[in-house]
């Protein structure tokens, strides 16, 4: 009970809510890093996955990317990213963490976007083509809207992974919420450690929940049980 009291005390201390080491700053850093990593991953993988899914090629590659992605441990990605960032003169902290997060986010987005487009009922696509829709129109008007739930699902998996892994950035002198955990561990400062863990866990759960809400809100009418 004393630990929980200490954690509450840590949160109550106004000093922890101010300045460049304060909770708000760390949350903003965490969201910036995660958001940028997911955005870069989307830009790199969604157009490719939409194209491959539409023409129906590259399924083998898309599925295998997902399996390789699972085999890449997050700390190993960070380990590979660090020398690259150093060699490029980008230093510690933000950049090597970003380099580690982008490849982590690509596999779920690439695979689920590919599958989402591929799994759209071929009869519907055939009917659209038969009525004279151009290929780009088929993709925009049929395949993307119908595949949206699955596409968002991939982005949700990627985002939750990225938010979780961004914590590790603190090991390479990054900011974000991992700072509290890594410092807490190093200093044996348990209130700070547990408070940091709590913040990271809440952010991860919040990411998961808000994606689920967003997916519900954007689900195409007619594809839910009660439209």
């Amino acid at each position, binding site marked *: 009970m004393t630990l929980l009291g200490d954690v509450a005390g840590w949160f109550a201390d106004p000093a922890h809510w101010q300045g460049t080491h304060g909770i708000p700053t760390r949350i903003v850093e965490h969201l910036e890093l995660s958001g940028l990593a997911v955005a870069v991953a989307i830009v790199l993988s969604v157009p490719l996955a939409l194209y491959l899914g539409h023409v129906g090629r590259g399924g083998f590659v898309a599925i295998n990317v997902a399996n390789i992605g699972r*085999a890449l441990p997050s700390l190993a990605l960070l380990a*590979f990213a*660090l*020398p690259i960032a150093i060699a490029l003169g980008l230093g510690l902290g933000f950049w090597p963490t970003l380099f580690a997060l982008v490849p982590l986010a690509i596999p779920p987005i690439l695979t689920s976007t590919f599958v989402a487009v591929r799994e759209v009922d071929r009869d519907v696509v055939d009917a659209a083509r038969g009525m004279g829709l151009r290929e780009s129109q088929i993709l925009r008007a049929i395949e993307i809207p119908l595949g949206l739930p699955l596409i968002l699902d991939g982005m949700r998996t990627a985002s939750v992974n990225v*938010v*979780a892994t961004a914590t590790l950035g603190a090991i390479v002198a990054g900011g974000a919420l991992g700072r509290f955990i890594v410092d807490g561990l190093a200093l044996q400062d348990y209130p700070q450690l547990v408070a940091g863990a709590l913040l*990271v*866990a809440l952010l*991860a759960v919040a990411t998961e929940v808000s994606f689920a809400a967003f997916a519900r809100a954007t689900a195409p009418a007619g594809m839910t049980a009660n439209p």
Partner: protein
Amino acid sequence: MTPGEPLVRWDWVANHTGEIGLRIGEHLELTIIAVVLGLAIAFALAFAGLRLPHLYPPITAFAGILYTIPSLALFAFLVPYTGLSLLTAEIGLVSYTLLILVRNIVSGIRSVPSEVRDAALGMGYTPRAILWRIELPLALGVIFAGIRVATITTIGLVTVTALIGQGGLGYLILLGIQQFFSTPLIVGATLSVALAVAADGALVLVQRSLMPWTRVR
């Protein structure tokens, strides 16, 4: 990681083969304990969920929350209670295996064709014999898919337990980061990926030998 220095210094690798072997052993040990314990707990939870279907949604919801909590945060919650110990590492690692394993065991058993179950019952199999001799063998493919994902994920997560004083190959990665020395970092990361790939291959072989009927045609 000073400019001009090669990414991997092979002389360091040659001088540290003993240590590298030790870390591989630790890594495997942490992984095997986690997956075996996870499997035992997951089977208990899955059987409970199959026997009492209203328990299944809360079981998966709980496992889902455990899975969503970032690994470093989960270890951090535990450290004040269980210290920088093997126990802390294993509680965290086991927690992450549960969701995929429970889900795959249950859906594997539920996907056994109803006519197969009906035929077995009609020929005088007892419900217990149906579970052990019909349903579990037929669910093995889906269960193995879960074991493979759980194993690969665990091998990756074991590296993170280096931060709480365990970690196997993660120890080499951390050493590299702390000493700003790329060789152990790259060796640790590469070997952990290689270990994941090798473990996956080994599991595929085990699965094939356990399921000869999937090899036909």
